[in-house]
């Protein structure tokens, strides 16, 4: 029997075996980052926390969105606290920075707009970007509708945020006109 003829199938077999071993190894270490199965918010949060500390932290955004979905199914004021505690836990675990945790919370559950954060004065910073600021606020208002109204049943809070958006729009228009006139 020719030596070459024997070597070729052996090499093929070895390559296939290596690939199989490699794939098996991968499958055993990759975390399963499935969606929470329970429609109960507390249980769902427990499940998500387990997934997050088992290596699914890259899926944080998706989990947060899914938790909001679940909470919309049972809206109540206490949900605010559940989300706050979940975010504080995420921050303590080092999954989020404090600032990120604040952003996640305030964007959905606070009347004030995170889009209005800035360290410079309005004439120099906000006015040149007025349209973008207002556009970002409008998007944030949708998140507040979800967080305040649909998840927490905080109608007052949501309507106050809506009014705040309108007031900011009016005041920025006047202030930016005044800034422009003074140049």
């Amino acid at each position, binding site marked *: 029997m020719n030596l070459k003829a024997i070597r070729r199938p052996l090499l093929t077999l070895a390559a296939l075996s290596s690939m199989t071993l490699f794939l098996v190894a991968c499958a055993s270490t990759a975390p399963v980052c499935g969606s929470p199965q329970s429609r109960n918010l507390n249980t769902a949060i427990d499940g998500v926390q387990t997934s997050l500390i088992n290596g699914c932290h890259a899926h944080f955004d998706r989990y947060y969105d899914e938790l909001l979905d679940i909470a919309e199914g049972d809206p109540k004021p206490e949900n605010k606290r559940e989300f*706050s505690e979940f975010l504080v836990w995420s921050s303590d675990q080092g999954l989020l920075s404090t600032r990120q945790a604040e952003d996640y919370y305030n964007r959905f559950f606070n009347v004030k707009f995170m889009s209005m954060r800035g360290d410079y004065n309005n004439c120099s910073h906000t006015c040149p970007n007025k349209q973008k600021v207002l556009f970002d606020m409008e998007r944030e208002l949708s998140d507040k509708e979800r967080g305040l109204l649909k998840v927490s049943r905080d109608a007052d809070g949501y309507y106050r945020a809506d009014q705040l958006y309108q007031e900011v729009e009016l005041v920025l228009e*006047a202030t930016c006109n005044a800034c422009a006139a003074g140049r």
Partner: protein
Amino acid sequence: MMKISVVRKTLSLGIATLSLLSATSSFATTPTIRLFPTTVVEDLRQTGNVARDMETGLQEVIGRLDQQQELYNESKCDGAENDSGCQRLARQIGATYLEMLTIMEERLPDMEHTVNNTKLSLEKGLRNELGKKMTPWKLQETLVGGKASEALPQNTPTLRGRSGMRLSERFKQYYQLVATSGAKGDQSLAVLASDIYLDMDETSLLIQRTRQEIARATLMEQLNQSFGIITPEMIEVVGGVKSILFGDEDAQTLVAGPPPGSVEQAYRSPLEQ
């Protein structure tokens, strides 16, 4: 011919400012941001006086126009324009209309002057207090007033959406606004100052355009006087002025506050800013 909106805006501007004069005592209790210094208050007072004079003069003329129009209709002059009696009535209406334009023409320069003064004073305040001294976050906090989680008081009056309201009702709303502004603090002042400033800015432009239009409208009506014609534009303008002075039945006022909520909000997250 002048547009109704131009006439309406011109008339309503001073009425808005007039009611704000008494705001000074309330504003004095919230000294944190200085959007209404004495100069602004004085400018508002002057604008208000000019507007009141104009309103008083126009109200009398409008009353006469109403009577003449009624007589014209009762005499079945519609469609009988060639009748000499009807032509005479039409000329009388035209003459009163000219009188209305003249009153406006006389008062507008004063009003333009005081409106511009008010605008400039407010402009300076807004630029310094809200534009240069505040970050966007600070501005937002000023508007929220440190009570973000609390609902606004119901029936909070606002300046926006004045058009079409009876004058007496408008004054009543302004009074309520002013009477409660001390308790509401800086957030109301910022909105109020912005609202008045934008109103004055727009009004200033409208006055300029109105003055140009009045000259043309006067010439047109002088020509019409020769033929005793009542033009549809004339009736339209008079109708617009009337709706400002006596209110518009069909007009709806804007909803000022949010609908009542039922949920108590006691929880405050440590993450909340």
